[in-house]
């Protein structure tokens, strides 16, 4: 790489204990801006916990999380989840948490932050937010259309298939204009064609907006085609990191996955 790499996020020696049980131990990762980074590891290795810490869901027991907002790094551990979201870090959930009384399209429309119609005074005067709303609806429909899912726009989550729920969960995250997306197992349960399309879509977004992705995924074959760099967690510790093909050949990683 000739161009100097700017980093957007870094964790420094992050540890997390749950009632004395160590789940993460001194994890330090750095995320280059505009990259698609994979985060892999066997079940229970602490990947989701790391996401939870980055997004303010948990406070780390030790260590710090740094994030580049405009031009300087700030510490974001200890901020509330919604404040971190407003720094344009968006995450999706491993177990989808769609809002069950909202239709799919409404689920997508909830995401953008700071909508005009969200203040009480504007809400009662619909002229103030109509224009913005229409644009959001167009965007949401565009995204759904790309996956040939227009017909589910008015369905409720309870009426969807498991794969569709997972897809909507990811698409909901992608509705936000974020700089950093944290996707927790976005491909789980998707059929091969849709998974491919989703990955292509992610690449497309990255190329056109220079945003950054961190993706947790167990379907390593698909993931490796997409990502630039991979971190491997094992038992809460960083086991390896590197380019996808390097990591795959790393004997430690193989051992962690296959077992002793």
């Amino acid at each position, binding site marked *: 790489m000739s161009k100097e790499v700017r980093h957007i996020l870094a964790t420094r020696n992050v540890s997390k204990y749950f009632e004395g049980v160590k789940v993460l131990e001194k994890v330090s990762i750095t995320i280059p801006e505009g990259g698609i980074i994979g985060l892999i590891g066997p079940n229970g290795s602490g990947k989701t916990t790391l996401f939870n810490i980055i997004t303010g869901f948990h406070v780390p027991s030790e260590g710090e999380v740094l994030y580049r907002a405009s031009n300087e*790094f700030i510490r*974001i551990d200890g*901020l509330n*989840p919604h404040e971190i979201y407003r720094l344009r870090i968006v995450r999706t959930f491993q177990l989808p948490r769609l809002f069950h009384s909202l239709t799919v399209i409404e689920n997508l429309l909830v995401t953008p932050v700071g909508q005009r119609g969200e203040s009480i005074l504007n809400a009662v005067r619909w002229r103030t937010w109509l224009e913005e709303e229409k644009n959001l609806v167009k965007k949401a429909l565009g995204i759904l259309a790309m996956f040939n899912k227009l017909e589910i726009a008015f369905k409720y989550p309870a009426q969807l298939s498991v794969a569709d729920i997972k897809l909507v969960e990811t698409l909901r995250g992608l509705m936000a204009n974020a700089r950093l997306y944290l996707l927790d197992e976005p491909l789980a349960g998707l059929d091969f064609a849709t998974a491919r399309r989703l990955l292509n879509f992610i690449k497309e977004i990255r190329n056109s907006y220079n945003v950054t992705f961190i993706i947790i995924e167990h379907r390593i074959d698909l993931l490796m085609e997409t990502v630039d760099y991979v971190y491997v967690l094992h038992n809460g510790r960083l086991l390896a990191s590197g380019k996808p093909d390097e990591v795959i050949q790393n004997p430690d990683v193989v051992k962690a996955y296959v077992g002793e």
Partner: protein
Amino acid sequence: MEIYRAILCSYVFSWIYILSSLPLTLSYRTTKVFNFAHPIFITYGAYVVIIVNEVLGREIPLAVAVFLAFVVGGLVSLISHLLVFKPLSYQRVSSNVYMVTSMGLWFIYQYVLYIVCQLLTRRYDVNFLSYSTIEYKDVRFLQDVLGLNSMPQYTITATLIGVSVGVALYILFNKTVLGLSLRGIADNASLVAICGVPINRLVNLTWFLVGGITALSGVIWVNFSGSTTPDLGLNIVVDNFAAAFIGGLYSLPITAVASIVLALIENMLLAVLNYYFGVQPTVRIAIVFGIVLAILVARPPMGAGGGLPYRFIKRVSRK
């Protein structure tokens, strides 16, 4: 003299609160639902004793009172579960719906009791809507034998019931297979179900125990208070829930300690306020409420009962 009375009150209230908030915590652990109808068990426990006392010609022994209250409280609880909470759980509704329903149950039970009391008042020519104290004959006998006549009877009653329930529960939960499975259900029902435990029957039993034990505090109440009314439960509900809160709706020992501390603070403060400022006992609830608010602000009970990972105090620093 005032202080002596306040101490006695704290003592009795401690037992009353313990006997009603421990089951509350237990029922929350088993069902994950706030049962707002919980204090009704106290009221029904008290009233079955009152009614039978009148029928028996005011000669009720404590042993009979305890038995009746336990059975009636347990049945009321079990019926609520079978007729209302269980069908509701098939609907997979939110916990709010459970709470509202339990509130509905509360009012149904309370006003049915009002009606019953009014009917009985006409029949027996005694004011059931505000009943005076009941003396237990066998406790009086015990006092005579042991030479404890200087103690007010309610302290003896409370001790007898409290200690025996405590011992019984300890044995049940720690020494018997049945108790272990009950505890298991309270913590992780599906796991216990896999082990082949008949979960439905045990949940029913839990409800029965919860109602029965809670009703026993009514047995103490009628021995202690000079006036029992059908909205008795309303006066105790706040302390009940407050104690269960402090226990985080999980820990039985903390709930018990919280009950004692609440009873102490409340009665002492009340005595002081009453002595110096002539404040009426209605501020009792305000005192407990102050404690509840302090807990909510200082150490919000997160885990159980939901809650947001929201921190008012933030830490941001630039690097």
